[in-house]
């Protein structure tokens, strides 16, 4: 029991000492996960909308695949990405293993189905109706696109924040393709896992607290967007 309390005390001390190594690790985590979320959004949102608003044969199959990939274990994504990026793999010549780029790639693969799935789901229901209504009011292609994005604005934000949350808190993928190398590819989650292995609880707890605050912050954003949708109007 003692060492848990000590851990927290040590943790606060460490956080407020602004250790440059800790700061670097946190910033790298944010950079990797934010980038992955950005790419995931650029791919997942248009695809999710396009697939969602159209009725086509095999749509049920597509949605089943999509929902399966949404909850794919990160460690398996890391494994498969590593197979491709390894020196002996198809993309070996780019020497991407153990780099932040590899981590971004892996997390993008992780996050894109999540974002796409959420957008697809809403586009299939309310998105479809919005398109129909827009058409009956005389909207042409471009108008409909703008209309859709505006109507699905809250959903897109929810998808984004959910995707980011998933990225920042996973450890399996970044551990395998990143290698937790000090100064290069060490992020919050791999740092916590490693220090826990070494029995160094206070730094683990410190980093854990930082990670939880970031998680809390992004979830508050999510909450705000869901609530905001109900009361919002524009001028």
């Amino acid at each position, binding site marked *: 029991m003692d060492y848990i309390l000590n851990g927290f005390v040590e943790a606060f001390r460490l956080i407020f000492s602004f250790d440059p190594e800790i700061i670097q690790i946190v910033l790298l985590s944010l950079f990797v996960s934010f980038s992955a979320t950005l790419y995931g959004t650029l791919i997942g949102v248009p695809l999710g909308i396009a697939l969602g608003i159209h009725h086509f044969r095999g749509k049920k199959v597509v949605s089943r695949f999509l929902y399966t990939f949404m909850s794919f274990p990160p460690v398996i994504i890391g494994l498969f990405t590593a197979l491709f990026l390894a020196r002996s793999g198809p993309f070996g010549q780019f020497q991407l293993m153990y780099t932040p780029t590899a981590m971004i790639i892996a997390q993008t693969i992780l996050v894109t189905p999540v974002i796409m799935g959420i957008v697809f789901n809403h586009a299939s229901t309310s998105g479809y109706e919005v398109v*129909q209504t827009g*058409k*009956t*009011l*005389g909207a042409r292609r471009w108008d409909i696109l703008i209309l859709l994005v*505006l*109507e699905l604005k809250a959903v897109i934000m929810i998808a984004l924040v959910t995707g980011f949350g998933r990225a920042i808190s996973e450890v399996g993928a970044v551990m395998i393709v990143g290698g937790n190398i000090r100064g290069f590819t060490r992020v919050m989650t791999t740092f916590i896992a490693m220090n826990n292995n070494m029995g160094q609880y206070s730094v683990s707890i410190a980093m854990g607290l930082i990670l939880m605050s970031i998680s809390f912050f992004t979830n508050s954003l999510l909450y705000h967007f869901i609530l905001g949708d109900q009361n919002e*109007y*524009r001028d």
Partner: protein
Amino acid sequence: MNIETSHIKKIYKEKTVLSLDGQFSDLQFESGKIHGIIGPNGSGKTTLMKIIAGLIAPSSGAVLYNGQPLCQDIFSEMTYSTHTPTLFSRSVYQNIAYPLKIRKQEKNAIDQTVSQLLEEFEIDDIKDQSARHLSGGESQKIALARALSFSPKALFLDEPTANIDPKSIQIIEAALQKRNREQGLTIIIITHNLSQAFRICNHLTFLDQGSCLFSDTPEKIMTTSHSTIDEFISFNRF
């Protein structure tokens, strides 16, 4: 806008949902009239409406608009509204202004049109509120105001006054009749409310189980002797 249908058939998932043949293979929806489509549930009313509104294609048969087949220009002069309208997540004012905005009208012109509509439908007090989460009556009035804002030539309504308060029904019917009278707006309306049908329609079409049983003036429907129609009317009239 004159609308004519010819031998319309719609098959959905191997079931014939709608089949207009025999005596009623060619239906006429004359310009400038208010046409009611009535009949029991599942008779194909919504299917027929969606086909003539250009939203779905028939499995066979044709629809002509002023003698022409459907094209984008004709389609943009028609509009469609259901009993559960999809309003955009923006203010009431912005919803109504939307069709005018995408037609690139001037701000002042838009403001004038929208203000008139807000007054006519008595929804001026909620014009800045979000259009979501409003009552049934308010939603319907907004949807209708929005649909009428760009002065379409044909209006298709699928049970526009189902489950809303009597005052709103009155306002909506008055708005419809006004435009029909003053601008010659062709209106085609599905309704379960027979009093409404008799109140505002110049022409009634009766569907039952995918077939048409009657298509003539409301007065004639009272004298027609068809068991299904008689049953339906006596059951629904009060």
